[in-house]
């Protein structure tokens, strides 16, 4: 595949809106274990709004699409995870400024900026049982794949595998942030809800690239 141009990015957000709508109940159930159960609702709402905003753009560029999606998500999903994902998209958009198509190198830059933005805004570190524990391996895998000159679909698929493994690993961690932190040891053994969102993102992106 020849990277993500504006058509592919528009298709990605359409697909994300569908996927988060379909995963709504599963995310609500997951978040309800140690959070306040609003994750499924806010993600479905947020990515629905991001899709609508991107679809309505008349003269899109990848940077503008990602920025528009981020701003729409921030407005529609003013929860912690909505704000973090919005920040990731906004920072990621700045990292691909000027690019007409997102190849492996651009996509690696996008995910690194996404991760750094989330870490900065959430004031969290890798290992705190947050979405960062999945975003970090995604960004690192994409950077490694870019250095090796891998094609975008291959790179995204490797990143998906790394993310799914990282999600599995979060079960062994103890939450340090947000409402889940109040549960501390009780969070051990439970899959982190926010990290699940990041896996859905990279999985959907990899699926788009494979089509």
């Amino acid at each position: 595949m020849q990277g993500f141009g504006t058509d592919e990015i528009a298709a990605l957000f359409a697909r994300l809106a569908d996927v988060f709508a379909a995963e709504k109940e599963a995310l609500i159930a997951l978040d309800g274990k140690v959070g306040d159960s609003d994750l499924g609702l806010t993600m479905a709402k947020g990515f629905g709004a991001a899709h609508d905003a991107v679809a309505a753009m008349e003269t899109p560029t990848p940077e503008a699409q990602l920025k528009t999606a981020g701003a729409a998500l921030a407005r529609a999903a003013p929860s912690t995870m909505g704000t973090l994902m919005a920040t990731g998209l906004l920072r990621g958009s700045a990292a691909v400024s000027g690019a007409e198509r997102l190849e492996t190198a651009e996509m690696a830059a996008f995910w690194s900026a996404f991760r750094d933005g989330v870490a900065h805004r959430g004031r969290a570190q890798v290992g705190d049982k947050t979405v960062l524990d999945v975003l970090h391996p995604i960004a690192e895998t994409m950077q490694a794949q870019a250095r090796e000159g891998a094609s975008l679909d291959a790179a995204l698929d490797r990143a998906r595998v790394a993310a799914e493994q990282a999600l599995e690993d979060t079960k062994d961690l103890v939450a340090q942030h947000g409402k889940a932190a109040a549960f501390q040891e009780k969070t051990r053994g439970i899959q982190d809800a926010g990290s699940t969102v990041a896996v859905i993102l990279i999985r959907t992106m990899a699926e788009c690239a494979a089509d």
Partner: protein
Amino acid sequence: MKKFVNDPENFVDEMLDGIYRAHPEVTHAGDDLRCFVRSKQVPGKVGLVTGGGSGHLPLFLGYVGENMLDGAGVGGVFQSPSSEQILEVTRHVDQGAGVLYLYGNYTGDLMNFDMAGELADLEGIKTATVVGRDDVASSVPGEEHKRRGVAGIFFLYKAAGAAAARMMPLEEVARIAEKASARTRTIGVALSPCIVPEVGKPGFEIGENEMEIGMGIHGEPGISRDALAPADEVVDRMIERILAEQDYTQDKEVAVLVNGLGATPLEELYILYRRTAQRLEAAGAQIRHTFIGEFATSMEMAGASISVLQLDSELEPLIAAGGDTPFFKKLAN
């Protein structure tokens, strides 16, 4: 729970409806009642925006008014306002000179204000941020940046509000707010818990004969849980924490705020102030400005906090300046 409420879910919006009906000098930006702004903005002035959870009146929105703040994002009880609400307030109060965000150091508020600032930047509105972090009980010296913002944020509002009213530029207003923040210390004591209306019962208990020094304004654990002592002794134990961090050899003048947390009578606040003044004077401080009453509450929590701002020649006239908001009125002195 014994409260005047209708549906607890409407607690915040019905409170706001009441405030708007009582005070035409404030209104909401757009349709959302929680985007609280002055009815008339001052052209060319730096906009000052605060925000935070409800349940602390007159904090936060109570300081929106003349010579003070221009807008506030209003969250649910003990919850941050959303970045979208803060952004809406930001758009409304920006008069071309930029907007200063001034709020307490809490994770949710930090995230949402930062997000709002980033979105405002995309729209060409310049923002700066200063957080209140005056609660000495919430982190040890050397880790001041981790401290929570409590009643002492009033001094930041007062100083920054007067500076902005003098048409100082954003960088200067931010510098002054930061200076006030760095020179303010607060310590609190709680005698009874508070109840979030939607929860309906206290989240923690304080025994009949107990007090908790250092408890936060959302019931965050304090430094020590002890048997309630005579008022002077309570002040002595509290003020030590502030005296340990302020040296009055050079800058002697201070502003003092003795704040009630919601259920403590003014009489008791003056008894606390009496000892506070004695101790400050004994330590070499000269009390230049005194504020006593409810400035930052925690619903029906019984208790009080003591805040001390160490003044200098720049901050003193800004604290002395007048101010006029629905909840705070002061003549210039």
